C-alpha cells in the first residue's frame, strides 16, 4: 500500500538548534528519503511564503499566509510504499520533527483506478 507521511512542525522548532545539530537532522531527513520504500517527498518553504486562495464575493480571493492559524504547520511529506500500516508507522517514527514538538500524520493514498 502507499501512504503519505505528512510532517507537521512546531513554528520556531529549529530556532535554538545549533548549526551542527541542524546538519545532523537534515542528514536524517535525507536518510529517510533514500529508503527504498520512500518513492517521493518534499520539504516546503516556511509558512511565511504561503498564499491562500479561496472563493469569496465575486470570485477567488488571495490572502497572505496559511489557511488557519494552528499550533503546528505543515512542513513537508514523504510518499512511502509499505507492506502495511505498521511498516509505514515505523518510518514515521524516524522523522526528526516528532522529537522537536511536531507530529507526523500517516494516511493511506487512494489507489489509482485500474
Amino acid at each position, binding site marked *: 500500500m502507499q501512504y503519505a507521511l505528512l510532517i507537521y512542525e512546531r513554528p520556531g522548532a529549529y530556532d535554538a538548534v545549533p548549526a551542527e545539530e541542524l546538519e545532523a537532522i537534515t542528514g536524517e531527513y535525507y536518510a529517510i528519503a533514500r529508503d527504498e520504500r520512500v518513492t517521493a517527498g518534499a520539504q516546503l518553504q516556511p509558512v511565511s511564503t504561503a498564499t491562500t486562495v479561496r472563493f469569496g464575493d465575486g470570485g477567488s480571493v488571495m490572502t497572505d499566509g496559511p489557511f488557519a492559524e494552528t499550533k503546528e504547520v505543515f512542513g513537508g511529506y514523504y510518499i512511502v510504499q509499505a507492506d502495511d500500516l*505498521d511498516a509505514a508507522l515505523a518510518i514515521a517514527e524516524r522523522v526528526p520533527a516528532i522529537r522537536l514538538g511536531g507530529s507526523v500524520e500517516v494516511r493511506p493514498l487512494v489507489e489509482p483506478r485500474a
Partner: protein
Amino acid sequence: MIEQAFRDHWGRVLASLVGFLGDFDLAEEACQDAFVIAAERWPRDGAPANPVGWLVATARNRAIDRLRRQRTLADKTRLLREPIAAEAEEDLIDDQVIADERLELIFCCCHPALAIEAQVALTLRALGGLSTEEIASAFLVTPETMKRRLSRAKAKIVATGIPFAVPDGHRLPDRLAAVLAVVYLIFNEGYGGRVDLAAQAIRLGRELAQLMPDESEVLGLLAMMVLADARREARLSGDQLVLLADQDRSLWDFERIDEGRSILDRALALRRRGSYVLQAAIASLHCSDPVDWPQIAALYGELIAATGSPVVALNRGVALAQAGFPEAAIELVDGLELDGYRYLHSTRGELLVRLDRPEEARAAYQRALELTTSERERQFLSRRVAEL
C-alpha cells in the same frame, strides 16, 4: 449444544476467516452462516468430530459462495491469501490443521491506530462473539451508535492496512501492553448490566494465557482478574460497597482464589514483575487472613516505581496506615498532586480521624463531598462527618 460451540469456537473460526479473506465483514457474515448451518445440522446428524475444521470449511465455502454470487470473485481473489483449488470438504479437515489465528486477530483489534472504545468493542465482537446489541447495552450507548463505531473501525482496518499479524519482537511489548489494557478495561467495566463483562475479560485472559504461556504480564493480568472475581459475591451487599475488612469471607470463592494463586505462581516463576504481576500479588495478599499489610505496602512501592501513578501511591498510603504507620501514610498522601481526585480527600479524612485530627478530617471529608458524583458515596461521607 450450538450455544456452547459458539462460545468455544467463534473467535477461532472468525480469526481463521479474517486471515483467509482479509475482510472483516465478509468473514463475520460467513461465520454467522456457518453457525446457522451447524444449528440446523448438528442436532440432527450429531456434532462433527472436528468442529473447528467443520465450521472453518463451511464458513470458507459460504464466503466463496457469497463472492461468486456477487460476481466479484475476480476482483476479490486478490484478497485471498491462497488460491481456491476446490471447495473444502467439511468433514475432512482436522482441527489441528487449522492454524490458530486468534492472536493475529486480537493484535489487529487492539491496534493503537484505532480509538480505544473501538478496540474494546471490536475485541468483544470478534473474540467474544458478543452481538452489537449486547456490546451497546454493556457500554450504555444505542445499538446504532455501536454499529457505527464497529463499522468505522472495521473500515479503518481495511483502508489503512492495519496488519493481521502478531507484531515483531521489538514492538511486541508495547503492543501486548495495549492488548492487556483493553482486557483490563473490559474487566473494570465489571458486573453491571445484561452482559457479564468481567467474565468476558477473564475468558479473553485465559485464551491469551493459553496462546502466550511465557508472557508474565499475560499471566499476571489473568491471576489478578481471577483473584478479584473470587471476592465478587462479598464485595456488594445489596447495592452498597463492602470494604475488605467488613467482607463476609464465607462468600469468597476459595477454589478460584487457589486457581488465581497458581496462575500467579506461574507468572512469578518467569522472574519478571511487571505491573499486572504486582497487582496480582497484591490481590493475592488481600485474600489472606490476617492481611499482610507491610508486604502489600512494599509491593505498592514496587508498583509506583513501575507505573509512576499517584493513584497507586495513594493505595500505598492506605496500606501503610493499615500496617500501623498512619504518620508515614499522611506524609505520603499529603505529597500527592491529586486535588481533583475525591478518593484522595476521603482517604485523608480516614487517616486524619485515626491521627485524632478531627477538624482537618472534617475539611477533607467536605472536599470529598464537593467532588463526589455518587449518591451512595455522599451518604457514606455525610455519615463520617456526622460521626466526628
